[in-house]
């Protein structure tokens, strides 16, 4: 039976009228038209649907909106500030870290959580933070490079 749920996504409050068995992934893509969050395996094995809940990466395909009321959800659409890209988005674009791009949104959110808690992450920390995000195109090196570049950039901005 459908019921009214309240979700905060990218700083905006939304009222949804959905069934309790709809996952966060379905709610984002099909109710809120936030299709930046990708559906990959839908079984918790690929990381394509990674979003942040109160700053922590989780999988939208295995989360229920009914359990996330009152929490702050961040999707890839919440990264840019208006026309200003997030340093991660800039770095991914400039270093060609996306090929088919399907894993990119999830990668960037896992990386954002890392950069928010660790200003100067080591290569190892970046690898650990992205361990739950599969990429079938790039071989990962450019993705790791892009996160390192973004870390450097945000670190530099912080030092100004």
């Amino acid at each position, binding site marked *: *039976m459908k019921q009214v749920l309240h979700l905060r996504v990218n700083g905006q409050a939304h009222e949804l009228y959905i*069934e*309790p*068995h*709809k*996952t966060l*992934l*379905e709610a984002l893509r099909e109710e809120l038209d936030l299709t930046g969050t990708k*559906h990959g395996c*839908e*079984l*918790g*094995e690929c*990381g394509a649907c*990674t979003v942040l809940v109160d700053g*922590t*990466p*989780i*999988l939208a*395909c*295995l*989360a*229920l909106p*009914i*359990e996330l009321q009152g929490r702050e959800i961040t999707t890839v659409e919440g990264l840019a500030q208006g026309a200003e890209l997030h340093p991660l988005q800039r770095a991914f674009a400039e270093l060609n870290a996306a090929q088919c791009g399907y894993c990119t949104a999830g990668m960037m959110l*896992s990386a954002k959580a890392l950069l928010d808690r660790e200003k100067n992450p080591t290569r190892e920390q970046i690898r*650990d*933070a992205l*361990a*739950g*995000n599969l990429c079938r195109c790039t071989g990962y090196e450019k993705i790791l490079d892009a996160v390192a570049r973004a870390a450097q950039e945000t670190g530099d901005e912080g030092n100004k």
Partner: protein
Amino acid sequence: MLRLPPFEYHAPRSVEQAVNLYAQHGADAMFVAGGTDLYPNMKRRQFEPKVLIGLGALDEWRGIVKHNDNGVTIRAGTTLAQVADSSILQTQYPALAIAAELVSTPQLRAMGTLGGNLCLDTRCNYYDQEFSWRQALGFCMKKDGVICMVAPGSSRCWAVSSTDCAPVVIALDGRVRLVSPRGERVIAATDLYRDDGIEYLGKTRDELLTEIILPPADETKSIYLKLRRRDSFDFPILGVAAALRFASNGEIEHARIVLGGVGSRPLECTEAARILVGQKLSREAIDAAAEAAWKPARPLDNTDSTHGYRKKMARVYVARALEALGEK
């Protein structure tokens, strides 16, 4: 898109409410904590509960509490990430922090709970498949069918215990608290498991696992090693938990070695432990214990990699675990 089957959802605020809700709905209901095991299984139609009792909103559901005697209680809803990051566990019960850190991926460790990992459904290549795949093959006895695809002549299911934390909690002499409307009981962690792929838990379905209780670590050293194809993702195809307590003269006073991923329940290597007690951790003692540990391991051809390799690696990993404890 793979979607969940419809269900009615309840979010009780107390353990009492949770177990009473279960009593009300009976076999139509299931408890769910992090959902990282149950929801994929529901999407594959391995479970189709009409009622889900979500445990995330329970008061006092998360947290690690130190006892006066230096033991600890870990509430069942503590996430695997919290277990892995706990400084008490890292220093006193390192095997448990290591095991939690090795479960799946950062996202799933942030969602999944210790209680959920201990109750993880047994796994099998013929069971963990989508409905249409299982239907095309004619279904196995664990869900919707009558035969075992791995051992067609067998009268039982051989799905594999694939929890990383259970072997550790058993090796650490842990106990678990189970609560139902009939009351509560505390049992040894080893008694939480049965050697059957379908009825793999030694608790009734209406009992809720609420706490994991570890005795004081004292001088016990512990470790967990995990074998899998991809180091950042997979379930164990072999897990080795070892806990040794040394006397002041360097002799082993107490030993437990428990294997995961080799049968329908965690496998305790009692003979290997018996060999170690009263010995110093010499090369000879390690080799003798490893030799004794791998014999009872009987992995079948129903997980990743070959069962012959997994059995051989049981000896190698037990030896490595003991060597690492000797170096600590």
